[in-house]
Each structure stands twice: as structure tokens, then as C-alpha cells.
């Protein structure tokens, strides 16, 4: 409070965010522990509002000299800073929250080592075609936020992350397969079903199927669906939402698409009670039966597109300013099973994962990428893996006009719960 008290005389408003955390990470390559690392960090970030502009500073030190320098830096930058187009939120409904998974909270690094080894042993015993590696990590800490408008709250948090990587190599034919989860200490079901799911996705990896350039029926796995959804989430995030903001309550996507974003979900993910600016989080429809309901905003971007903040102003670490970000996405399921969907595809492709989508212009709904791992489907059967293939589509258009079906089954991908989606008329270029 010392800092905010000092600033009462020097600025019109202020916000102090602090994060105290420990992260533990275990990286195993094959049967070799590559590294075990523990990071301990504490940091505070200050935003000051002066003469209608915002100044920002941060420090990892805890002493009065550092506090004085932090205040000086933030005030100094404020004269050049971003225009303050929003007001800080006042008192929250509750002063504290619990976002702690009891198991992760008491996790020791030894537990993570044993867990990561067990996962890898399970994968190796069920699939020896790939070279496996994993990174398992946890976070435990406390976030606190106080501002000059009267907001003062803190919560303890935990998080667990698991990344699995498999490398398939036959001479110069290389496929990189991966899966990623974030949330609570992995559910038992996740581990028990892991081998079956992975094997299903890698079954025909060594059989190569030829294909020509052309438009195909394409089934996107839940993992590939995550990349596909970027094409509709990015255009409604932050200032990108400017163009679509006039189309709220309009049909933008196929009525089969109902997409919810929920930072409060505690089923698998770790919930947060308020975002990193003090806006209370809530579940929200982004699209309901194809109708655009609302976007993803921080305080600043909500103001710039003239809507309410949505509780999505998040900082990847204390030293960054809040940015609008969607977290846990839930796409409603369809009525057909994946097997039924695939069985109905006469001439198509099943994409397990999109390999390289960095060239995409997601803000405009454009997805460009290589097919990281995909299979040719002929007359309802997977007949072999496709190589050196790339696709280019506009997700906003494809998810409006080209949906064939959405699967009834859903899977956790990172911290989102997603089905498979089948689209018609997707153009794929191929060198094979």
C-alpha cells in the first residue's frame, strides 16, 4: 500500500499487481532426464494514470529504494504513454478466491519426475515407432492486485502442464507429433486412456498415401480444431474485434457452432476469480448457434470498441501489461461419432494436427499451414499418411458455409474441450 499511498499525491490513479510463484519443470528425452529446474520469482508491476495517460513499470526487488525507482519510472513513462481510455474497477464482490488444486499445491518435484517417467514408459511400451519426450511442470503461487479505485484482492493458484512429443523418423521422412494439457494435476482417466488415443492417431503412420492438389472433405481432430478455432477467436479478440463489433447478434457462423469461453471452469482447468486487471471473470458465449454474442477484452480494448470488459485482461508474467486473451474454450458437440463422420467421407483427409500455422493471418480468419500429421480417407477408410501437404482456408467462411458435421465426442486439448469438425471443399496442395 506504500506505493499507492505515495502515488495519491502524484497521479490520478494507480494499480499494483504482484505475483509470487514457484515453477518446477522436468524435461525427459527418451529415458534420459534432460533437466530438472525450479524457478522462484517475485515481481510487482505498477500502472499509473496521470494526465490522461498510462505509465508502466515493474521490479523484482523488495526494498524502499526499488519502490521509489519503480514509481519514478512509471511516472516518467506516463508522459509518453498510452491514452487512458478506461477506469479501474472498484471493490470486487469477494476479497479473495481459491484457485488451488489440492494435489498440485502439495506437489514436490520428485512427484513430477515419477509421473513424467510413468507417462513415458506407458507410451514407449504401447508405441515403439516414435522417439518420445515429455516436459511436465507445475506452478504454485499467489497473485494480488490492489488499485486506487478500491479493489483489493488476492488468490492462490496452482497449475499443471504436460507436453508430450513424439518424433517419427524413417530416413528423411520426419513427423513431429505432440499433445498438450494444462490445468489440474492430470486426471487419472487422461493417463489411463492416453495410450489408446495416441495409438489410434499414429496407427497408419508408416503407410504413405499419394494425393493430388484439390478440394477435399477434411475432418479436423480436436487438436486441429483448436487451430481452426483461432480463425474465429482472434477476429473477436481485443482491437481486432473492431470490424466484427457491428455484427453482434448477427449470424456469423453455422448454427451448429456454439462456443463458450470460461475462465471460471474448474472441471479440468484451473479457474481464476478475476483477471489481472481486477475484472471479475465469468463464462460467456462467444458464438451461440452461430450468432456472435461477445468478444474477448481487456479494459483498454473493451473501451476502444465501446463494449464492457469481459475479464480477459491477462498477463503472461508480472512484467507484461495486460492483454486480452481467451483461455478455456468449449465447443458444443454434434450428434455423430467421429467413426460415423469418417465413414461418410468418400474422398478426403483426416488431419490429426496442423504442423505449421505461423504464417496464418488469424486476425482476418485466414489459416495457412502444413498438415503436420494427416491421413488420406477413401470411401470411409483411412488408407495412409499424406506427406508434404499444405492447406489454406478462411475459417470465418469455412465455419459458416462448409461444415459437414461436428462429432459427439470431445477431448481436452490444452485447457479447452473440443470435438472433431468435418468441413467440405477444403483446398489442399500436395507434393506427394
Amino acid at each position, binding site marked *: 500500500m506504500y506505493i499507492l499511498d505515495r502515488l495519491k499525491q502524484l497521479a490520478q490513479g494507480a494499480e499494483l499487481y504482484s505475483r509470487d510463484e514457484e515453477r518446477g519443470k522436468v524435461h525427459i*528425452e527418451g*529415458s*534420459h532426464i534432460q*533437466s*530438472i*529446474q*525450479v*524457478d*522462484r*520469482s*517475485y*515481481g510487482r508491476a505498477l500502472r499509473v494514470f496521470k494526465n490522461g495517460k498510462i505509465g*508502466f*513499470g*515493474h*521490479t*523484482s*526487488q*523488495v526494498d524502499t529504494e526499488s519502490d521509489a525507482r519503480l514509481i519514478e*519510472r512509471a511516472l*516518467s*513513462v506516463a508522459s*509518453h*504513454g*498510452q*491514452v487512458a481510455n478506461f477506469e479501474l474497477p472498484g471493490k470486487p464482490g469477494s476479497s479473495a478466491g481459491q484457485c488451488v488444486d489440492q494435489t498440485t499445491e502439495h506437489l514436490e*518435484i520428485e512427484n513430477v*519426475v515419477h509421473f513424467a*517417467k510413468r507417462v513415458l514408459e506407458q507410451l514407449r511400451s504401447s508405441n515403439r515407432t516414435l*522417439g518420445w*519426450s515429455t516436459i511436465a511442470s507445475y506452478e504454485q503461487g499467489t497473485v494480488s492486485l490492489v488499485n486506487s479505485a478500491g479493489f483489493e484482492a488476492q488468490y492462490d493458484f496452482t497449475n499443471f502442464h504436460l507436453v508430450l512429443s513424439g*518424433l*517419427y*523418423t*524413417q*530416413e*528423411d*521422412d*520426419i*513427423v*513431429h507429433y505432440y499433445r498438450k494439457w494444462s490445468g489440474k494435476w492430470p486426471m487419472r482417466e487422461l493417463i489411463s486412456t492416453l495410450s489408446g488415443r495416441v495409438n489410434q492417431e499414429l496407427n497408419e503412420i508408416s503407410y504413405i498415401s499419394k494425393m493430388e*492438389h484439390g478440394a477435399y472433405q477434411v475432418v479436423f481432430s480436436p487438436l486441429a480444431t483448436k487451430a481452426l478455432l483461432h480463425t474465429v477467436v482472434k477476429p473477436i479478440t481485443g482491437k481486432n474485434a473492431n470490424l466484427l463489433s457491428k455484427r453482434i447478434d448477427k449470424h456469423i457462423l453455422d448454427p451448429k457452432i456454439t462456443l463458450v469461453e470460461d475462465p471460471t471452469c474448474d472441471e479440468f482447468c484451473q479457474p481464476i476469480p478475476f483477471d489481472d486487471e481486477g475484472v471479475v471473470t465469468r463464462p460467456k458465449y462467444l458464438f451461440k448457434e452461430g450468432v456472435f454474442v461477445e468478444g474477448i477484452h481487456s479494459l483498454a480494448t473493451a473501451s476502444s470498441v465501446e463494449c464492457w470488459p469481459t475479464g480477459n485482461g491477462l498477463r503472461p508474467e508480472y512484467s507484461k*501489461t495486460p492483454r486480452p486473451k481467451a483461455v478455456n474454450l468449449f465447443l458444443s458437440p454434434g450428434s455423430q461419432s467421429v467413426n460415423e463422420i469418417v465413414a461418410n467421407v468418400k474422398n478426403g483427409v483426416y488431419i490429426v494436427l496442423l*504442423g*505449421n500455422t*505461423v*504464417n496464418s*493471418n488469424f*486476425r*482476418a480468419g*485466414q489459416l*495457412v499451414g*502444413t498438415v503436420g500429421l494427416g491421413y488420406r480417407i477413401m470411401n470411409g477408410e483411412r488408407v495412409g499418411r499424406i*506427406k*508434404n501437404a*499444405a492447406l*489454406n482456408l478462411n475459417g470465418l467462411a469455412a465455419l459458416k458455409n462448409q461444415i459437414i458435421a461436428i462429432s459427439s465426442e470431445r477431448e481436452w486439448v490444452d485447457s479447452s474441450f473440443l470435438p472433431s469438425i468435418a468441413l467440405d471443399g477444403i483446398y489442399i*496442395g*500436395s*507434393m506427394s
Partner: protein
Amino acid sequence: MASVSNQSDDLYTLFSTVVAQVPVEYCEVRWEETSYTRFIIRDGDVEQVEENELGGGCVRALVQGAWGVATFTNPAHFETSINLAIKLAQLSAQHSNRVIRLAETIPQQARVTFPIQEDPCSLLLASKLALFTEYDRYARTLPNIEHCVCRYFDEAKRTVLVTSNGTHLIQNQTDLYGSLTLSAFSQGKNLSVPVYGGSSNDFGALRNLQAGIKLAGEHLTQLQKVPSVQTNTYPVVIGPELASLLVHEAFGHFSEADNQINNPQLLQLMQKGRSLANRCLNIFDSGLEVGTRGFVPFDDEGVPGQRTDLIREGKLVGRLHSRETAAWFGEQPTGNARAVSFRFPPICRMRTINIGPGDTPYEDMIRRISLGVYADGPYGGKVDGENFSFVALKARMIRHGQLAEHVGPVNLTGSIFRTWANIEAVGTDYLCKDTAGGCGKGGQGPLRVSAGAPHLLVKELLVTPR
């Protein structure tokens, strides 16, 4: 810009005393103090501006052939972090079946400061903002330009490295880059063209960008009118900037020795002596190019920067090493162990990777092609498995041995090893232009790097419209 404090000088003494007494095979502490400036200007409005400082340390201990790593932000936690790193290394040793050794190096004692020309730290934030505000204003006066986003970053980083084998280094490093992205909507598509520059010692690299902005504006106007390429496989002449990205992403990462150790099949593919390409191809990585963003006089293990040949006349001849990987291969460390910040241990990374000039003039490459594509102006790209995919903003058809009509941005996709074997000619020219991007690997990014190359003629690539 705030200057780097002298706290590191006091810590240097403490680290030297403690590390010398730690009873392990090897121990190192790396403490970093960084002051940086960063801003974003979007259509004339400052969207983000920062002048900040960041400090922290990374301790690495090698015990019974296994690593333990601990990072900290409070210098008072240094000694507890050493104990934690040792404990983690012991735990790792219990579970690991590979014993890590380190290649011998000559301990270095030095204080290094990058040879600065125009120092960004000597400039006020207001003058940097004024320069980019002027660029932004100029860009938006050009025909058809609807939006302009300017990004600027500079940092002064002091790194203290103390190792138990006697290295005591203090390096004062500088890095800076800036970019403008001009964009316009046309026929439902968002088209963008960037202008950028970067340096490790000269703010001058970001002055006088008006000519580049004008060219980018003309290019963007042109992109609004041109047709899309027809998806197909074509012979492609790749321009030097795109070839620089290609060699970094589609060869350099495979040369990083830690990637090879962790993948026996890749190791087999990258065997020294294997012929990967035609004799016209030479590739090397170097930390010696003063002023480039890949200038690395000492890596984060204290190994001096040097030139490392990777491909000579089409044959694989070298790898990029840390001390650990050099010992594993029985080779010499190459000065490529780099960490993006104190939050990470060093891993094998590139510095400035280069394709050496060849013997075919660019005009001759064009003359050889009856139907093909010319591509340059990289706008992102990445490798996944054996595939790479890059966007080229500057693309033209080649017809009957001549450059023909311009086409819209293209996506180039290919198989890595097949593409290197398919390089039919290497240009006599060479360009090394620092970008506003950086390299990412294992969660560590963006790391400052550079790349340089001449024109390349590739027999066949999949070309699709972006």
C-alpha cells in the same frame, strides 16, 4: 533509457567466492541485469511504452553426471539456489541413465563491451518515439495505406558469468530492432508489408527508413492488384532474405547438436561426411560479425565466438555445440551455448548462420527457367517434422527465362532434405540483413540471431497462394 546498475560488480565478488567452494563436478552462476525500452505505435497512437529493468540469476550444477537448475530474482537467494540446484542434480542423477560430461575449455577472464556506434541508451525515450511517430505519419500519407503499426525494442544487458572451472566474464551487450507493418484491406483480404532493421551496436540501423517505407507502400499497392499464384510445384528462385530464413529454420536447427543427440535418426541423417547438397553449397555459423544481432563474442558457458563450418561443398562437416554436446560427440565446443535470459540454462543455438556465395549470377538462374516462381520478402515461416513452410511477400512468375507478372504473397512448402538436394545453383551475391524477429527453441525466445545468404535456385517446391 535507464542505465544498467553496478549491482553486478558487487555480486561478481560474491559469486566468485561461493562458486569456487561448491563441492560438485561443475557449477556456474549467470546473473543478468537488463534495462530495456519497448514501444508500439498503432496508427499514430502509442499503444504500449515501457522503460524497465529486469534482474535475475541462473545456477546450474552438475552432480554425478546430471544437471540441476535453479533460477532466482532476488540476489539474497543466490546461496539457497546453489543448494537447490545441487539437490535437483542429485535427484536427476538417481533417475538418469546417461552420464553428462563437459568438454574441456580454456577458462576465460574478461570484461567485454560491444563496440558501440550510435548507442540507443544515450537517446531519450522521447527522441525514439519521435522518430517512429514520424515514420508512422509518413507511411500513412502514402497511397492506399490504411494502417501502420510500429514496434521498437532496445536493451542493454550486463551478464556476469562465474564458473567453477575458473571462467569469470562480464559482458555488456546491446541489442535493438524496429519495424513498421503497413497494411490495407483489399477484396476481403488483409495485406501487410513490413519494413525493419536491427543491430547489436548501432541505433543508426533504424535511421533513414523513409526510402524503405516508400518501397513497402508501393509494394502494398501492387499487391492489391495482382492475381494469386496457381497452386502447383515449380522451380523457385529464392531471394537472399528468404534464403536466410530458410537456412536458419530448415538447416540450422538440425545442426544444433542437442537436437541430434535426442534423435538417433536425425543423428544418422546428419552424419559428418554425408553429401546433403550439390558442391555449390557452403554453410557456416559465426559469432564474429560485429554489429549483427548474431554477434556473440562469448557464449553463456564462456566459450569464445568463432566460425563453425557446417556444410562444405555440399558435405556435412560440423555441428553447433555446447560443452555438453561437444563432449558427447568427442568434438570441440563451438561457442553456441546460449540462453535467452536468466530464466533458462544455455542450449545449442545459432548466432549468424550463412550460406556462402556461389558461382551463378542471379540473372543466369532466371534464364534457366521456362515456368517458375521468384520469391523473396519473408513474412514468417517454420519447420515441422520434415516439412517447412514460409511466406514470401514478393513473388513473380518466371516465364521463358524472364521475370514475368507479379503475383500475390505465396506460401512455399517443401521437404527439408529433398530441398537441399534440389538446390541447383547458388548466387554470386550475398546479403545479411538483421530483422526484427528472433529465434525460438524449447520455450526460449526470441533470441537475437542473424542470417545471411545469396540467391538460390531450387528445382521444385510446392507453391500455394497465401
